[in-house]
């Protein structure tokens, strides 16, 4: 019976992908929120000695300065810790595959489905996020390209400033409803 079962493999049919909060948007005075399309992501861990070769493999220089990021061709590497980067690829190219051939010491773990990304754009974007995030989001303290793991209300987020008035908020999948709702509530009061 076991053999029979193994022989009888049904034709693989790609099943439907159902991202959390797909397509949700909110637009109020001063700020627009949108749940972004799924992206490819890895959590990359590596000692300093491996950074150069990993950067080359990934096609983007892994930033080594705290609270910074680097981006190239739809791929962004965010410094999260001294040996930790979040690599996000919005161009549907799998960074996990790019790291697979690297023999230098590292750990790459696929987390494409773990995270959900929400864009927060508009003159009141920083105020919206500051409704629950205690960091100083002025352009001096958190310039364009700045990236950091931090807090939004009662959830952990990764925050990336993509433009003077635009942020990308990443959170874990099951927190996305909370985070989107929090940002929606905050957005309504952010123009003040």
């Amino acid at each position: 019976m076991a053999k029979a079962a193994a022989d009888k493999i049904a034709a693989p049919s790609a099943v439907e992908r159902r991202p959390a909060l797909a397509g949700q948007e909110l637009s109020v005075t001063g700020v627009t929120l949108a749940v972004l399309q799924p992206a490819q992501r890895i959590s990359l861990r590596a000692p300093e000695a491996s950074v150069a070769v990993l950067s080359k493999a990934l096609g983007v220089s892994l930033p080594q300065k705290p609270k910074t990021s680097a981006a190239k061709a739809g791929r962004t590497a965010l410094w999260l810790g001294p040996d930790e980067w979040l690599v996000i690829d919005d161009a549907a190219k799998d960074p996990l595959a790019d790291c697979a051939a690297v023999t230098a010491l590292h750990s790459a773990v696929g987390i494409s489905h773990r995270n959900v990304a929400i864009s927060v754009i508009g003159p009141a974007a920083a105020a919206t996020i500051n409704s629950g995030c205690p960091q100083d989001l002025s352009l001096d303290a958190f310039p364009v390209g700045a990236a950091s793991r931090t807090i939004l209300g009662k959830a952990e987020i990764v925050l990336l400033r993509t433009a003077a008035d635009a942020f990308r908020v990443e959170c874990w999948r099951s927190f996305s409803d909370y985070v989107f709702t929090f940002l929606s509530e905050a957005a309504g009061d952010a123009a003040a």
Partner: protein
Amino acid sequence: MIATFRIPGAGRLKQAETARFSFDGQSYAGVEGETLASALLANGVHLVGRSFKYHRPRGFLSAGAEEPNALVEIKRDSARRTPNVRATVQELYDGLTAQSQNRWPSLAFDVSALGDIASPLLSAGFYYKTFMWPKSAWKNFYEPRIRAAAGLGVAPDQPDPDRYSARFAHCDVLVLGGGAAGIAAALAAAETGVRVILADEQADFGGSLRFESGARIDGQDGFAWAQGAVAKLGAMDNVRVLSRTTAFGYYAQNFVGLVERVSDHLQNPGRALPRERLWQVRAKRVVLATGAIERHMVFADNDRPGVMLASAARTYLNHFGVAVGRNVGVYTANDSAYAAAIDLKKAGVGVAAIVDLRDNPTGSMIDEARALGIEVNFGRAVIRAGGKLRVSSMTVQPKNGGGERTIPVDAILMSAGWTPSVHLFSQSRGKVAFNDETKRFVPGTYAQDCVSVGACNGTDGLSATIDEAYAAGAKAAKDAGANTVKATKPKVDASESWSRGMLGAAPGAGPDTTVKAFVDFQNDVTAKDIRQAVHEGMRSIEHVKRFTTNGMATDQGKTSNMHGLAIAAETLGKPIPQVGLTTFRAPYTPVTFGSIVGHARGKLFDPTRKTAIHPWAEAQGAVFEDVGQWKRAWYFPKAGEDMHAAVDRECVTVRKTAGLFDASTLGKIEVVGPDAAKFMELLYTNPWEKLEPGRCRYGIMLREDGFIYDDGVVGRLAADRFHVTTTTGGAPRVMNHMEDYLQTEFPHLNVWLTSTTEQWAVIAVQGPKSRDIIAPLVEGIDMSDGALPHMSVREGRICGVPTRLFRMSFTGERGFEVNVPADYGQAVWEALWSEGQKHGACAYGTEAMHVLRAEKGYIIVGQDTDGTVTPGDAGLDWAVGKKKTDFVGIRGMARPDLVAKGRKQLVGLKTKDPKVVLEEGAQIVGDPKQAIPMTMIGHVTSSYWSQNCGRSIALALVAGGRDRMGETLYVPMANAMIEVEVTGMVFFDEKGERLNG
């Protein structure tokens, strides 16, 4: 009704916008922009409340945040009912409805005012002394009655429908207080370009410039200058101006909490606006420009409605255009009350007399008062206010005794001097210093990067204040990193200058036992109470405060602290600094719960985590339970089924055919690196080095003390990669525990940890038909028992998407856990479900999962263990690597007490009556006939009805349990002594044959 006390041409409000409002059911007209207090005074209403303890009639003492008396309830609708609103702060809007509090049946006739007559019984410490006996009566008799009689307002009984928002903000210079000093400091700082926040509690900036008619700055009236300066500040990109915003707490490292009252002053706030906005500001430098608060005179019956602070009367006149009476008396120990008399006289109000306690004061204000024809009396005291519901007279006597004279008045304006508002400075942990010459506590030693300017710093006079504040603002900006810029300091053209005053009780405040001279109006503390406290042995002001409750009301003693201190000091015969000042604590003024809660209510109270498969379970009518923040499907009732029936069916179906279970919430950690196995060896009791890639092992994690911390199945995907699972609730702390050891104890290991809990949706398929259900959908994995034995893992594809397929079981049946990327979770579940339907499989929830694992004696960490259970206690010795030389907990579990005989061990229990299901948590005893209190030898940890076993089953921790097999023990319950037999932990398929069945 015509507002008869409104003075045409006076005040700064546009008279056009009339606002109708009601107070205690009576309708009145006021003006938009004024306070409720101002509007009531304009209508000649002074009686607005009853006092806390004696139910004495009370009016308005002040025109600001320090108000102790005029607390009212503001009602927008049945849910928006706010008690204890200071009428001196509440702005009027059309349709405002207010009610007085703490009176029955009516404000003018209050039955509880009998307490005033019986007040000799109610003196300081009364409650402590009187209701001691009988002890039991306190809770059931005294306390409810006292609370009913001595309440403040009534709390609303419906959920607060308003929205409250919150904001973290950062700035270089935070200026607290928007009077002349605050504005000057903000201007100086703002001109350098640094980020400035200027906040003031009032609707209009200006502070005392709102009433100081004698101030002129930069060629303008002081108030007009303030408006111009604030408008200029508000237009600057680097400045945020916050009105109606109270800094209520000053915390470590220049972290200041402010509440902005956004819409309490609006007629129809609408849904768009929050009621309040909490600002949590981190400032590089803070400038405290919090001003000073005028003190009242302490004399007999100084609480009668119509007796108020002189500056309040000036504010009502000069800012709101309202006269507080037609024929006022003035009682002062200080020049500033003269200004009130002068302003009122010029506005056409009669000033009966000024009574000045000082002997021979001189000054321009005194001269001006005289020139206006006002009677001025030196060296005299007001020893009594006449009238009850409204002051009708003041009785004057030379302060050293002599003939009394009673002067009819309809208001008494008083000033004992000004107390610097050092509340926020004190909250910042700064130490105040007593200036003996001016009898004031002023900022002494600073603990944070802040500076006090103006009146709160003891600086007198507008010129000196602006000089000091402007310099401080510029310095704060420079200290925060600004470059110096050339700017123009505001120029003071004219100002008022006030001399000192007095502290403590004035002559006539007692010690006569029939006199009530109030020190603290809100808590009904009199001068006599303070003296009595000292006579009864209180020495420290902290004791006096607690014994008398002086300064302990919601006004935090803004007007009473210094008087109370001075009276205590005088009675003790000690100088004031030796008696000490009580500590100021946050909040400066009462803060609503709503503003503290902010967004964190309803859906945002706490994140609710749902799995990718949740929508399917919801559509199937699953009942959910909360497991930490997660919602988990508890059971899936079919039509007509109760929980019991559903769980029985699910348990039986799993063992008969198969069941699908959403295990996505299990914590998952990917351990990657060449030293991954070494790390696993250190963190788990089990051996890992020799585990083949593709195989799994049940792992136990201990704390260093040797007790079980977590457990879970771990799959080795490759030599350098483990897929670790944790309990649902334990996921975050296990990750933290592992990171802690990796970073701080074993940093030499080349291994990294990544949480993948949410990367994978996990579908457990358990039961004899499980393989038949999964196999048709899988590609690239040989699912035969030979190729995929129990406790193994393979990577491949299912339904065309990547999977990590575990062969493992938490039911004792042949079982699998299908991991797929989370976004595919629901679709793969649906595919498995339709395969399962062909075999009669069911979906099962966490309750059936619990029963099924208990039938097999599998423990649940946190249910069958409680942080004091070792692997040995749990019967899991086999999972501890005997040859290992180190792992976390290896030493702890060898401690003498942890290896001693007689420890509680996990065993099974069978009730003698198979139908009886034990209570989880129930205690277990050996001898049912022993005397109470019985010796408890253990407790039930898990207990269920098992339809598969046809009886109840239970797990229990029992002292020496494994040596008691077959013994009869007892579970005493309220109405039964339940007999149980100690058994092994496995109740079903003891040989474990079904894992491959």
